[in-house]
């Protein structure tokens, strides 16, 4: 049986489904017998989901305009 520390070390790969079948089985054995790790795993999964695909705020218009001006200036110098 894996320790909690060993389980947590593999948590990212487990959630990303990057572990081989053998390790996966061991991790699932641990999680089924360890309520704390089950909660950590479940809430880490939800953490990733809630951030996934969060669109950046639209870039502020003034920031965009100054970027375009700076680039146009630079482009004018170069053939």
């Amino acid at each position: 049986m894996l320790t909690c520390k060993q389980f947590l070390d593999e948590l990212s790969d487990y959630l990303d489904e990057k572990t081989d079948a053998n390790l996966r089985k061991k991790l699932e054995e641990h999680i089924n017998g360890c309520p704390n790790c089950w909660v950590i795993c479940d809430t880490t999964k939800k953490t990733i989901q809630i951030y996934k695909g969060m669109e950046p705020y639209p870039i502020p218009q003034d920031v965009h305009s100054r970027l375009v001006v700076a680039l146009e200036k630079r482009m004018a110098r170069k053939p």
Partner: protein
Amino acid sequence: MSAMSSPIEIDDEAAIVAQARQGDAKAFSELLRRYEGKIFRLAQHITQNREDAEDVLQEAFLKAYEHLDQFQGQSKFYTWIVRIAVNQALMKLRKRKSDRSVSLDETFDTGEDTIAREIAAWDENPEQQYSREEINRILGTAVDDLTPIYRAVFVLRDVDGLSTEETAEALDLSIPAVKSRLLRARLQLRDKLTRYFKRKGDDAFAYM
């Protein structure tokens, strides 16, 4: 090239980059339109300062324009420009904290940051207790509390959706370094979010 990326998207972008390299200003504007928001967000996450982030944004796109002929096209344009932007952002941080160097390679491996402090189940749909604005504030504050390297790795990997390999390339880190930072970032964020999202009356049964 990541197997996850759609080939159409890459071909399309390769064509735009090729046009930009030949001096097509419109093509370069298209690259800017695609990525300025993400680069500005990443720069804000690393520098935590709007003015510095704007400088980083401008420097990154100007450098990309000047050195476009050095872009090999083996990686995504976004990965390439992220690398430029991250370097600029780190220079800003170093200037600000001139008494100590800042590097994305800094290790914070005390072994303590993977210890979960808050262990409590969440509501089924915790987001629904909060307005969109409140959620954005909670998520943003939690990320800002991370150290710069954790922020950069987390944003590229879990928010922007780059692969581990692409994140490693963009940040000039090894793959194991990306993985260990990502794990710590995820666990720290989980810890912080639990304070907001835990099920009422279901407080920690923690004994770890």
